[in-house]
């Protein structure tokens, strides 16, 4: 059974249809890249999978581990192992990173029938993962994402992913705004998590991230549909010819980035 099976998924925001029939199957152990120009619906797809209520699903079906994903609340999706690394991580003043992460980890552990981590084990775990992401440990006592630089926010997403150990990780333009060193760091964090039990959907505008996180499959999304699928060589082809070579252009009124 596929881990994720998307069939003819359609979604709108307000009156506007953004996803116009997406079909995609992702098996455990696979890394799929979703590429496409601005406004093609990449981020919308990522957010719909995580359960963002801003979008209305108007048709189709999504099965996750055989279950109807669209029926599940966002928190239940997370507890079942879905993780979205946000394109724009949200600043939450007044909620400490430490408290937030502990609450998240313990609810997810509870769902896996694991006991709460005690304070010491929790600290050891997050110290180890922070070191791997070269993150300053003082960030733990700061409010979630508040006052973080762009790079720190992206690293914080991957750090959270490492702590929460999802079965399906969706990375939404995790490369945007990163310099090459930060990009390599983020990619190594992601690569360290590749495993036969885990699948990843990597949403990106540019090919450069895929030099670091080499996908098994590449899909090109345009105007709310997957117009081309292939292996990793498809990304290289796009790098050389651009989307225009496939007859695809940025949508003038890009709304998919929300």
């Amino acid at each position: 059974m596929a881990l994720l099976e998307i069939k003819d998924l359609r979604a709108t925001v307000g009156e506007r249809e953004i996803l116009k029939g997406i079909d995609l199957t992702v098996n455990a152990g696979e890394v799929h890249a979703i590429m496409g120009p601005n406004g093609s619906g990449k981020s919308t797809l990522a957010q719909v999978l995580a359960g963002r209520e801003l979008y209305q699903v108007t048709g189709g079906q999504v099965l996750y581990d055989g279950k109807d994903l669209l029926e599940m609340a966002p928190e239940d999706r997370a507890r079942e192992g879905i993780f979205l690394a946000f394109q724009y991580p949200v600043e939450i003043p007044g909620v400490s990173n430490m408290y937030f992460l502990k609450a998240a980890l313990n609810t997810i552990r509870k769902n896996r029938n694991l006991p709460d981590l005690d304070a010491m084990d929790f600290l050891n775990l997050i110290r180890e993962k922070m070191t791997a992401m070269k993150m300053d440990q003082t960030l733990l006592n700061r409010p979630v994402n508040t006052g973080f630089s762009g790079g720190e926010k992206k690293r914080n997403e991957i750090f959270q992913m490492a702590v929460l150990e999802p079965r399906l990780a969706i990375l939404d333009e995790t490369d945007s705004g990163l310099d090459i060193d930060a990009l390599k760091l983020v990619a190594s964090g992601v690569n360290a998590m590749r495993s036969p039990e885990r699948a990843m959907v990597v949403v990106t505008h540019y090919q450069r991230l895929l030099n670091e996180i080499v996908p098994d499959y590449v899909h090109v999304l345009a105007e709310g549909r997957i117009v081309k699928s292939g292996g990793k060589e498809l990304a290289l082809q796009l790098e050389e010819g651009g989307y225009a070579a496939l007859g695809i252009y940025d949508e003038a009124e890009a709304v998919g980035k929300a």
Partner: protein
Amino acid sequence: MTAVTEQTGAWLAEFAAQAPAASWVQPLRDAAFQRFAELGFPTTKNEEWRFTNVAPIARGRFTAAPPVELDVDAVAPFAIGTRLVFVNGILVGSSSSLPKGVHVGPVNENAQTHLGKYAAFERNAFVALNTALLDTGGYVQVARGTVVEEPIHLIYLTVGSEPVLHLPHTQPRSLVVVGANAQCTVVETYLGTQHYFTNAVTEIVAGDGAVVDHYKVQLESPEAFHIATMQANLGRSANFSSHSISLGGALVRNDANATLSEGAEATINGLYVVTGEQHIDNHTEIDHAKPHGTSHELYKGILDDQAAAVFNGRIIVRKDAQKTDSKQTNKNLVLSDDAVINTKPELQIFADDVRCTHGATIGQLDEEAMFYLRSRGIGRNQARSLLTYAFAQDILDRIKVVPVRDRLEKVLFDKFHEHGG
């Protein structure tokens, strides 16, 4: 009889039944009662009371809360410093190891030049009523140049009753007189059980160069009526801060007023949290009487269910008060469709070389932040409590008395948690 005389007349028996006061207090009581009878209880036609209807108090019948015996340690919400405890208006306990030059106890004749001189009963019927029924009162006096490290805690507890015809009332009165260049921290805590009416007046005098930190923690019972006026008068270059945390009560009105002399600095902050059918009204008045004064004001409110809150922030800059720097902010988090907030800045500026800014916001929980928390497995209700608590956090962070802050953090956390489900 008119409604006014009927309502105020009902208090005549209470006034007349009092034990005689000291000879210097009695004329104050008499004048205040006369003024109370003239003013009558305010109605919503009075601009100052437009959004707060005190009819349940005006039409109510009250009797002085009877003496009760209580274990003071069991009721104090936090154990800090020197303590003065009033139960049903009677001073039942004090603990102290006071430095030289400090008095913490009942009002005595040393208070004569200050008592009733700041909180104006001429224009506020509730202040007049409190003054007319003035009894023991809590008196904090700090001699000039004296630094009191430990906070001084005034606890006013009212043991109420079932909703009977004559509800218990208490008239807490506090007077804090801090000499020039002296320093102290005063915490007032109000709490109680069942139905009652608390009508409090606090006068604070900060001498030239004095540093006074004041906290008012209002944890009245959910059925209580609580009306209170705090009037602070700041000397030259005095530094005064007041934090008013209002969580309890069915019908609550807080007036927090400060008058600033030259170069004085006032920080007037507040947090109000209303749920169910609670109504909490905060009126503040910062009066820049002299030049070079600074005031900062931040009030935050959290409203849920059918609750209502009022914020009215008046800032007066007198003709003489050039170079005043004043900032006022009111932020509200509204969690339900049925909650109502009325917020109004009121700037009266008569000087021309001043800086005054004000801003008010009314908002809901941030939908993106909710989604972010939920996308990490945190349930909807827990996410809601977390964000609500976070909204209040910056006011709590400013509370410098650690046991008070810890206790309030816990009360608030429980309140949001329980409320959020």
